[in-house]
């Protein structure tokens, strides 16, 4: 039993960072999608370059970043090129304070392009007349973004956020290849996989799966409520209040009728 407590706690931090990854990825994706909405030359090249990481298989991503983060290799050489000393550069994968962030950055790299394509698709479906009308009315880029683009894609953002919970909790292949869950980087699945297929504790792994399902459902509901609150344009609330008033009125009418019946 004691081991189950430990295994349940240890993925906490790595799960937190993997969950944080999409929160870094969305603003970036949103930013670049917004830039792309305005006319860009060679936009298909930029789009392709940023989207392509999404199509690379997880194992390959793992190897690429294992190489990328390895001591003295790609990232370190790039930083040295910009004049940093090797001594000041942390160990990206060994240092427990930052290795989860390194791994989360991997998923930002992988999914930002995909999110951008999603957002861009939604933005493109906006009637172009709206942009023209806004330009005629003297709106600047920020106004256009806030009043036209953001409302048009809010449902996609919400959906994306809901899906991202399960997506980030299920981050498996890159961490599996890069660190194999050592040094506190085990995501939920890396640990579950180890329990089920290496330690043969199938029951425990099943329990983890169910716990995960519960977490996902709770997070989904919570995020949905949160966004219903954030993106509330007043109508939803109003109708609810109206319904409450109507029900109350009906109840009182019924009560009055009953009372009336009694006194008669």
């Amino acid at each position, binding site marked *: 039993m004691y081991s189950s407590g430990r295994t349940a706690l240890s993925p906490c931090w790595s799960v937190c960072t993997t969950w944080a990854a999409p929160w870094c990825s969305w603003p970036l994706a949103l930013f670049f999608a917004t830039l792309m909405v305005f006319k860009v030359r060679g936009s298909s090249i*930029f789009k392709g370059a940023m989207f392509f990481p999404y*199509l*690379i*298989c997880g*194992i*390959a991503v793992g*190897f690429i970043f294992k190489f990328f983060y390895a001591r003295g290799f790609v990232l370190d050489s790039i930083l040295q090129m910009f004049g940093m000393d090797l001594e000041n550069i942390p160990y990206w994968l060994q240092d427990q304070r930052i290795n989860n962030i390194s791994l989360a950055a991997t998923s930002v790299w992988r999914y930002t392009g995909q999110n951008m394509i999603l957002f861009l698709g939604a933005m493109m479906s906006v009637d172009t007349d709206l942009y023209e009308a806004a330009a005629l009315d003297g709106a600047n880029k920020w106004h256009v973004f806030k009043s036209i683009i953001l409302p048009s894609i809010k449902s996609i953002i919400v959906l994306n956020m809901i899906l991202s919970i399960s997506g980030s909790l299920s981050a498996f292949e890159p961490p599996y290849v890069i660190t194999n869950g050592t040094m506190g980087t085990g995501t939920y699945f890396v640990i*579950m996989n180890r329990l089920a297929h290496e330690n043969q504790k199938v029951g425990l792994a099943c329990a983890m799966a169910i716990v995960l399902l519960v977490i*996902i459902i709770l997070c989904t509901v919570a995020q949905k409520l949160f966004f219903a609150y954030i993106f509330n344009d007043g109508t939803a609330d109003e109708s609810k209040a109206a319904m409450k008033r109507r029900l109350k009125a009906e109840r009182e009418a019924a009560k009055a009728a009953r009372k009336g019946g009694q006194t008669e």
Partner: protein
Amino acid sequence: MTKMKPATLLFTIFKYVMLILASIVALVPVVVCIITAFKTTDEYNTTRVLDLPKSFLYFENFTIAFEKARMLNGFLNTAIVLVVVLTVSVFVGSMLAYVLNRFQFKGNAIIQNLFMFASLIPGIATQVTVYQIMYSLGFINHLYGYMVVLMGTDIISIYIFLQFFENLPVSLDESAIMDGCTYFGVFFRILFPLLKPAIMTSLVLKGVSVYNEYYMSNLYLQLPQLRTISTALYTFTGPYGNQYNYICAGVLITIIPILLFFLVFQKQIYSGMAAGAVKG
């Protein structure tokens, strides 16, 4: 040409700088991989990582990676799996969407919601139990067992098909039925050919996910001769753990098909992503 306002000019410069920066960040890890894949072992050991290789015509690493990881075998298995799985899943998905869209029956909404719910559960979470089922069915270490698991349709392609069916007028079905067509006839002779764009999109998306699938093929195909391309790539973690010139070559070998695929089917991939999102 009209002269730009300074603010607009500034915005344009900012825009391109940001986009170029982002593209560089997105591509650097892959580009470094390409550089490293063309280095001889000597060069790899002596030069710095960002130095260019002596020649880009040194293919030794690729042949070594290809042989050591038995990639040909992997490609063959993946190809077989892809063909079978894609064929079946298109039929399953489109037929399911046909039933869900054209027939009103009790439980229609429940089925759709169950698919939505299932998409919330990360695939790997269910694999612990699925493995037990597969094991008792004797499906482990057979290509057909692996294919059966993958054949199931997924929420995205169902949505793509459902969306498409909504735009096909029901009068088409009705007139066919008036002319004496059965439901199967309606589906295969009339609707299926019209579904072509949706089929392309769902094929492309499913194809990419099957090609990249690792976890299940690792679980269900443990024999070396059954490895698919991604499990073949994973063998590099063992004896070649630090020979990144071989690993990079192997990574590139797996990326090249998907890159070609991406360049050809760009449009379908983008529209598939968008379709999956809009409907949800």
